[in-house]
């Protein structure tokens, strides 16, 4: 079985084959043979030679969380079907949290300077500021005061000052 895991924008290619409680895993041209038991749902007890690997894994809607050695990693299992990852753009105007817009400081057409506040989102009684990543002009705003916003939604678009044409 071929599997691709994504973690922090990095992709790991792994193969695994199972024979009863033995697992044959290859990664980065090395093969590892382990014996493993799932003690409780998601709780793995893995023997790799003399060494013991203890891990707890949960399967969410999109991500897996892996607890190992006191650390937790958020990993996505992906299909490599030619799709390219969307790159994170300079000066993120996406909401970092789900919440409510408490203040929108700009209108479409307003000029903004780098680090000017564009809007203020309140979530769990704290405020989060969306600031302009560069000097420019507000091309579009997607939210107004009291609107609900979800994590990852785009708040506004800015036409960068130095640029000749509209898109960025």
């Amino acid at each position, binding site marked *: 079985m071929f599997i691709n895991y994504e973690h922090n924008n990095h992709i790991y290619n792994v193969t695994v084959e199972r024979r009863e409680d033995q697992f044959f895993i290859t990664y980065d041209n090395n093969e590892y043979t*382990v014996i493993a038991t799932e003690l409780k749902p998601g709780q793995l007890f893995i023997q790799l030679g003399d060494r013991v*690997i203890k891990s707890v894994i949960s399967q969410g809607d999109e991500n897996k969380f892996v*607890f*190992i050695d*006191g650390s937790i990693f958020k990993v996505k299992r992906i299909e490599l079907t030619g799709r390219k990852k969307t790159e994170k753009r300079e000066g993120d105007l996406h909401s970092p949290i789900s919440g409510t817009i408490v203040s929108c400081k700009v209108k479409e057409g307003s000029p903004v300077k780098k680090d000017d506040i564009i809007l203020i989102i309140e979530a769990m009684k704290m*405020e989060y500021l969306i600031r302009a990543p560069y000097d420019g002009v507000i091309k579009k705003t997607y939210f107004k005061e009291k609107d609900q916003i979800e994590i990852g939604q785009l708040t506004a678009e800015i036409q960068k000052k130095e640029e000749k044409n509209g898109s960025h």
Partner: protein
Amino acid sequence: MFKKVLIANRGEIAVRIIKACQEMGIRTVAVYSEVDKNAPHVQIADESINLGDPTPSESYLNIAKIIENATKVHAEAIHPGYGFLAENPDFAKACADTGITFIGPTPEVIRLMGDKIEAKKTIAHADVPVIPGYHGIQQDLSTLLKEGKKIGFPLLVKATAGGGGKGMRIVHAESELEQSIESAKREAKSAFGNDSVFLEQYIDRPRHLEFQILADQHGHVIHLFERECSIQRRHQKIIEETPSPMMTPQLRETMGNAAVAAAKAVGYTNAGTIEFMVDGKQNFYFMEMNTRLQVEHPITEATTGIDLVKWQLRIASGMELTLKQKELTQRGHALECRIYAEDPSNGFLPSIGTLEKVDLPNGPNIRNDTGVETNFHVSPYYDPMLAKLTVNTENREESINKMIWALSHYVVLGVTTNISFLRKVLDHPEFRKGNITTHFIEDYFHNWLVTKEGLPLDALIALAVYDALHTQRQEVVRYKEADPHSPWQHVGRWRMGV
């Protein structure tokens, strides 16, 4: 003693109070909003009442609804926990007016201490040192700007009705003053419904120390020693300990006496906390009084052997405080970490989602206070604190080691938490030396990232094993649904070498 108590709160503190009541033979009534209907505090209570809409103002902050329900179920007293209505004098008054005992001080004391300006004036009269600043009623921008310039920089802008770092700004230069005042006022308005602020001289890199108070209705007031709460992020405590590594027996006595004097000066009753700011020369200044149970009360319980919640209940029911200051002992060392659903490598942004797996560390002298469990959904409606982890041992070094062990065995999957971050803070050489101030996180963990490196090999192996174990089953099921008449022969690719 009361026969039935309503707990007007949720999460770990509601669970903790319910257990104390049940041990004392008191029947408990939980309240909950729609999203909390299967929450641990509801499961454990003897009765529970649905308050409806999860918006706090419609449920946990709705005075009328809570009082009405308390009356209906014949609760004799209400414990407010911390946060929500715990420091709301109108709520305490509404309880009194309905003949229900509010477990806390009188509405008058809450109101006085809730007004940070009046609080400082009153406490200063009891010869307890306070910080120079502007605490005037004039709240127009020009007065505040003028007074701010008079105090000088750095200075602090803080909501009069505030608490927990909300409506608070540090101003390093005159040019920032105006925007900071406006933003603090806006936040204060939203959080407390009151945009009044005060200004104060800002002490650079102070420690935050506080003293626990217990006072009965018969004039007995004692303190239960200090808690050091300097480790903060976004002005909110995340690690607390007692005794403080900077404390001396003399200073402890001086500050303890000041705390008792402050409590006596306002006629305080029940459990409360006097917060002090301490500078590098061991000068201390009264900051504020929290007129309720503190989040970090477990470390005091661990080192003194006293159950603060049970004493709150006894004092509220009119019993005498039989603990004597001289007989109290502070033994060993205790440390608390607050477990938050937040991302320390991204500005401590709260993290929302379903807790797919919760498995807590346990062992001697490890205390878990938690209001969540596997499958609990962390919603944006409430504070993202999931749980508290407290340890106590013979000394500070052992407590740090025990806490690191416990955090390394603390499993919360499904949301991002601050657990790895807490471990790193505890293991920092300056933390281990006890060199901590309220700026510790900013000074040493400003641009901290959980993982600079990639996935360790062991994680990949575990993932591969997990997927090999689980893919098979899923595929078999998928197959069955598709074609029930020939159940096995097509599954080959997924059924690895059985």
